[in-house]
């Protein structure tokens, strides 16, 4: 009974936090999804890998949160350092992704088989997984809320269960992204996605650097 209440609480938190999760992951997910080939199935595959890696990030965080006493006791400087490092990795990954999409275009755009852009090879899967993992480790507000709650639980297994249910709740909000497979892929869409990724990467890069050097973005 207590377990089902816990699951229900985590699920409700996930469902309620969905828009914030989309907002947090959107800058990474949307452009990278646009560099995949068109089609519901291929987009669903990409999203599965992304979300699977994100779940892994959640569970890893759950273990660390519970073991270390979590975010509650983590000094703000350490938290900012972790965030800065994650942002830098995210920026690097996005830049690599934007760059690699160029090569995919070079192979496919000149031929009628335009649909092969972003054909999921091993590197694309690894890319999706890395992006998913990094967004999973980003300390967005709902994630911190879940981390604080998980840290209060009696065992690591309960913390893992809490995060899993939280993940399921948030994932519901990600399902509509599969419909992005309906958007036709051509040079325009690919170029827009790559440019957007580069811009977003620059933002994360700036954010990461400022966090690591100990400056607040909107400090006084």
């Amino acid at each position: 009974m207590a377990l089902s209440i816990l699951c229900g609480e985590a699920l409700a938190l996930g469902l309620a936090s969905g828009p914030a999760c989309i907002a947090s992951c959107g800058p990474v997910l949307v452009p990278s999804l646009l560099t995949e080939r068109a089609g519901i199935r291929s987009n669903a595959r990409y999203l599965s890998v992304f979300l699977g890696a994100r779940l892994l990030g959640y569970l890893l965080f759950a273990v660390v949160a519970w073991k270390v006493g979590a975010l509650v006791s983590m000094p703000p400087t350490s938290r900012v350092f972790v965030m800065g490092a994650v942002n830098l990795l995210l920026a690097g990954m996005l830049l690599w992704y934007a760059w690699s999409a160029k090569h995919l275009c070079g192979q496919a755009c000149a031929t009628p088989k335009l649909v092969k852009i972003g054909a999921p090879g091993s590197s694309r899967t690894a890319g999706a997984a890395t992006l998913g993992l990094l967004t999973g480790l980003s300390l967005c507000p709902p994630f911190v809320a879940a981390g604080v709650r998980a840290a209060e639980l009696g065992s690591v297994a309960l913390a893992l269960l809490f995060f899993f249910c939280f993940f399921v709740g948030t994932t519901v909000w990600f399902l509509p992204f599969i419909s992005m497979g309906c958007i036709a892929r051509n040079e325009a869409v690919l170029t827009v996605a790559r440019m957007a990724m580069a811009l977003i990467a620059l933002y994360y890069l700036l954010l990461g650097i400022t966090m690591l050097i100990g400056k607040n973005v909107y400090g006084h």
Partner: protein
Amino acid sequence: MATNACTPHFTPASPRGLLRSLLLTLPMAIWSVLMGFHPGTSTDPKALLAAAVTAIFMTVLFFMMMRTGTTYRWRRYFFVTLGVLFPIGFIYNMVLARGTMGIPMEEMIAGRTPFCFLAIPLLIVPAALTRTIVFPGSITASGHAIGVMVGLWLAMTLVLGKGWCAYACFFGGIEEGMAAVPKRAKIRKLDPRWRYGPWAVLLAMVLLSLALFEPAYCTWLCPFKAVTEYVTARNAIGLMQNAIFIVLFAGLVIVLPLLTKKRTQCSFFCPFGAFQSIFNKISIFEIKIDRTRCHSCSVCQNACPNLSLSKESIARGEALMSCMKCGACVDACPRQAAVWHIKGTTINWKPERARLMFLYAAWAMAIMFGGSIIASGLFTIIHFL
């Protein structure tokens, strides 16, 4: 190459008779006076003088459009004047109200900045998802005025499509003026993929605005912060933000237009322009290329300040989605193959009538939005003189 392709019996535009031109201008003259001297207008002689000069200026330009049958040149006089006078009036009012052009970040986040239409596309997705408007300005303070302005913008946009960017935007004039300075472009070959830039900036900024819950474009990327109100630099980040604004302004609004003779900020960067392009699909007015007359001389393509014509689009007989209907291609075409067109009619259906219908709507908007800004800038100059 272009002139070789022409045949002499096609003239670029046919001048209209004086009386007919005056009659066609009369409604716009009345509209200019109504907009300049509506009830509530300041009775300060300097303000009245500024309003009178503006009304005459707008009326004369419209008359010249009617008389000569050309559009682009006269519209450009207005547009550059608008672009130059906007910062003058704006900065003066800003300094009067606040004592400085700088605005602290917390003031910006609190929404104590003047209304700016560039932020409109950034707030749609956050508003849809969170029912909260992320806006860098006060909506509640003068809600009805902003509501009316947004309503008018939407109505005009539905009618004119991306015409907003050529007849009302008070940011594009400076770069259009810069693009007009050199006789020839130093950089002629531009990678057409840069045309997708505004869409990329729009996508990135909408997503980041949602993630950060702030208008990311206004805080990080707007080139026009350099000539309106900048973020007060109180730390390294503030300095970095201002450096970005200045570099983008210098690069996209000054240097690149001088080198390319194009409106580079509008063509490669402005997210609002991308957003406005969507409405070109709804607007009934468009530019068409009559394939029976076109000799593919590329004069129209070179004349377009916005890279809205490509060889492929000309072959299809149409401008690209980003066309802002400035009329440059129509005026430049030596065979009158580029024409104003109303959707649903045949391509040969009275292009001059289509032009007139478009220009009445566009110029009315120009007087309404741009006229007050020009008058404000003129007032500032007269005040200092």
